[in-house]
C-alpha cells in the first residue's frame, strides 16, 4: 500500500484563528489510492486540516501540497464535501441545483453547462440513489439525504482526490452503508479518499491510513501501525493539558505563535 508515491504533503503547517492555533506545526506525507481517516477530539483541527489542504483557509505559516503541486494548480482534480451542518438547508434551491454546483467548479462561473454536464449530474445523483429526488427542495431532505446530495455534488466534480468533512455525522444506517459501498468502489477505481471521522469503533474497518490530530499531529501512518492504545490516549487523553495551557498563554498574552 505505502509503495504509492506521496499524494498529500503538509510541511510545518500552522493555522491560527484570531490568536488561537487550530493547527500547529503539522508535518506529514500521505500516499494516495487509499482511504485516509483524519481523527481527533472536538476542536482538534480536523476540519481545519481539510480546509487548508483544499486551500479554503490560508495557512499562517507552512504549506500543503497535493500531487506535489500548489493547490491552485490541481483544484480540478479534487472534490470537496464540506460539513453538512455548516449549510443553511432552508436555502431556496433544489437537489439538482446543488449538484450542478459541482460542475461550476469544473466549468468556471461564466460558462453555461452543456449536455455532458447534465449527464454527469444525473449519473452522480443516480450513484447516491437520489436521481428521483432531483426536483426536491433541499429543505425537505433528511440528514442522510442531504449527505447524499453533497456526495453527488462531489462526484459531479469528477476529482481523483475526495476530501470529506464528517460524511457519517448524523446519517441513517442505510446512508452510512451506501457511503461505505461508494468508498470501496471509488478506492477500487484508484481514487484517494480523505475523511474526517468521529467514531473510533469504525476507524479500523473504514480506513487504510490514519491521521491522529490534536491541534498538533499525534500520529500519521497505516492504521495497523498507528491505531493503538498509546496514540489514542495521546490524542484523546488528558495528557495534552500542557498544550492547551500553552495556547491559553499565547492567546491572552499576545505572544507571536512562531518566533522570528
Amino acid at each position, binding site marked *: 500500500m505505502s509503495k504509492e508515491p506521496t499524494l498529500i504533503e503538509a510541511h510545518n503547517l500552522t493555522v491560527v484563528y484570531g490568536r488561537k492555533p487550530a493547527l500547529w506545526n503539522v*508535518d506529514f506525507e500521505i500516499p494516495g489510492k487509499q482511504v485516509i481517516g483524519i481523527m481527533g477530539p472536538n476542536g482538534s483541527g480536523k476540519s481545519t486540516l481539510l480546509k487548508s489542504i483544499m486551500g479554503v483557509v490560508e495557512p499562517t505559516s507552512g504549506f500543503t501540497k497535493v500531487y506535489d503541486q500548489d493547490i491552485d494548480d490541481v483544484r480540478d482534480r479534487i472534490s470537496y464535501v464540506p460539513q453538512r451542518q455548516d449549510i443553511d438547508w432552508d436555502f431556496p434551491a433544489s437537489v439538482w441545483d446543488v449538484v450542478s454546483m459541482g460542475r461550476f467548479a469544473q466549468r468556471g462561473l461564466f460558462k453555461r453547462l452543456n449536455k455532458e454536464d447534465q449527464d454527469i449530474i444525473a449519473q452522480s445523483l443516480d450513484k447516491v440513489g437520489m436521481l428521483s429526488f432531483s426536483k426536491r427542495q433541499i429543505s425537505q431532505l433528511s440528514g442522510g439525504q442531504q449527505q447524499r446530495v453533497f456526495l453527488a455534488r462531489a462526484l459531479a466534480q469528477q476529482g481523483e482526490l475526495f476530501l470529506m468533512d464528517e460524511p457519517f455525522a448524523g446519517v441513517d444506517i442505510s446512508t452510512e452503508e451506501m457511503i461505505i459501498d461508494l468508498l470501496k468502489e471509488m478506492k477500487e477505481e484508484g481514487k484517494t479518499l480523505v475523511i474526517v471521522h468521529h467514531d473510533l469503533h469504525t476507524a479500523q474497518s473504514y480506513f487504510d491510513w490514519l491521521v491522529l490530530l490534536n491541534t498538533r499531529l499525534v500520529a*500519521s501512518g497505516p492504521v495497523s501501525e498507528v491505531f493503538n492504545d498509546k496514540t489514542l490516549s495521546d490524542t484523546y487523553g488528558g495528557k495534552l493539558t500542557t498544550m492547551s495551557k500553552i495556547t491559553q*498563554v499565547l492567546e491572552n498574552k499576545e505572544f507571536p505563535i512562531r518566533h522570528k
Partner: protein
Amino acid sequence: MSFGAEFIDYLNYNYTLLIVTLGTGILCLASGVVGTFTFLRKRALIGDVISHAVLPGVTIAFMLTGVKDPLYFILGALASGLVAVWVVDMVQKHSKLKPDTILALTLSVFFGVGIVLLTRIQRSGNAAQSGLDSFLFGKAASMNVLDVQLFGAIALINVVCIFIFLRGFTLLSFDEQYAKGLGFKTGWLKTFLSVLTVLTVAIGVQAVGVVLMAALLITPAAGARFLTNSIRKMLLFSGLIGAISGIVGAVISSTGTGMPTGPWVVVCLSVLAFIGILFGKEKGLIARIRLRNQNKTKINNENVLKALYKMSDDGQSSVNLNDLKKHDSLESLPVQTILNGLRKDDLLELVKGQVVLTEQGRIASREIVRKHRLWELYLSKYFQLKADHLHDDAEGIEHVITPEIERHLTQLLEYPDKDPHESEIPY
C-alpha cells in the same frame, strides 16, 4: 427693561439650560447602565429595533390625546417598543427567516408607520406638533423643566432596578441556561430587562432621537468593556460615558440653531468609547501593542542569554563580545542594545570586550535552556514531528512557558535529564 430684570432673565435662562443639560446627562447615564446588559447579551441590534420602533408609539399617543404630555409619550413608546420585541420573537419562532432579516424588517416597518403618522400630523398643520420632530434626532432644549424631572426620575428608577436585580441580570447575560438550572425565573428576568430597556429607550429618545438611540445603549458599554473586567465597574464607566456625552451633546446643541442633540451625543460617545478602546488597561489596543513589545524584548533577552549559556559552558567562562554577535541564533538582532538592557538588570557584566554572566544571569539562562529542551522532549514524546522541526518549534515556545507550565511538564516527563538530541537538561 431694567438691568435687574435682564439679569434675572439671564439667570432663568441659564437655570433652565442647566436643568435640561443635567437632565439629558441623567437620561444618557441610565441608557449607559441599562445598555450594558444589552451589550453583554449581544443584543445590540435588538436595541436598534426598539429605538426605531418607539416612534409610532409616540405619534399615536399624540394623535390620541392631542397634547404633548411626556407621560403619554412614554406609555406609547413603551407599548410599541414591547410590541416590536414580541413581533421579532414570534416571527423568529414561527418561520425559516433568519434573525437579521426579521430585525431589519421590524425596524423599518415600525419606523415607516411612525413616519407616515408624523408626516400626517405635520401636513394637517397641528401647531403643537413642533415638539414631535425632536423625536427624530433629539433636541434637549425642547424639553421643559417638568419633562426633565419626570424623565430624570424614571431614569433613576431604572438604574436602581438594575442594581437591585444585578445578580440575576448578570447571570442571565453570562449563561442563560445555567441561570435557568439554578432555578432563576429567566423568563421573568428577561421580560423585566426588556421592559427596563424599552423604558430607557422611551426616555432616551427625548435626548438623542429614535435614529441614534441605539448608540446610546451600545457605545458606552462597548467602551467600558475595554476599561474593566468587573461588571460593576463596567456599569459605572458605561453610565459615566453616557452621562458625559449627554451633557456635552446638550450644551453643543443649545449653542446653535438647527443643531440636533443626538448626533453630537453620538460623536461624543464614540470619541469616549474610542479612548477606552485605545487606552483600556488590559484589552486596549495600546496595552496590547505594549504587551507585544514587551514580549519581543523578553524573547530577545532570552535568546541572547541562551546563546551565552551555550557559549560559556553553563555560564562558567566569559564570552568574547564579537563571537557572541556572530552567533547563528542572534543574527539580525541588536545584540549590543539587548546586552545593555541585560546589564542594567544585573544579569551580566561587560569587561574589556568579554561578556560574563552574573549568578542571576546564570540562573536565568539555565532556565531558558531547560524550557527549550523540556519542550523538545515533550513534543517528541507525544507528537509526531520530524526531529529537525523540534528545535524551531521550541525556539518559539520556550518564551511562553510559565513556571507553572514548566512544573507541569517536568512532572509529566518524570524529571528527565536528557532532551531528544541527547543534550543535558539543566536544573
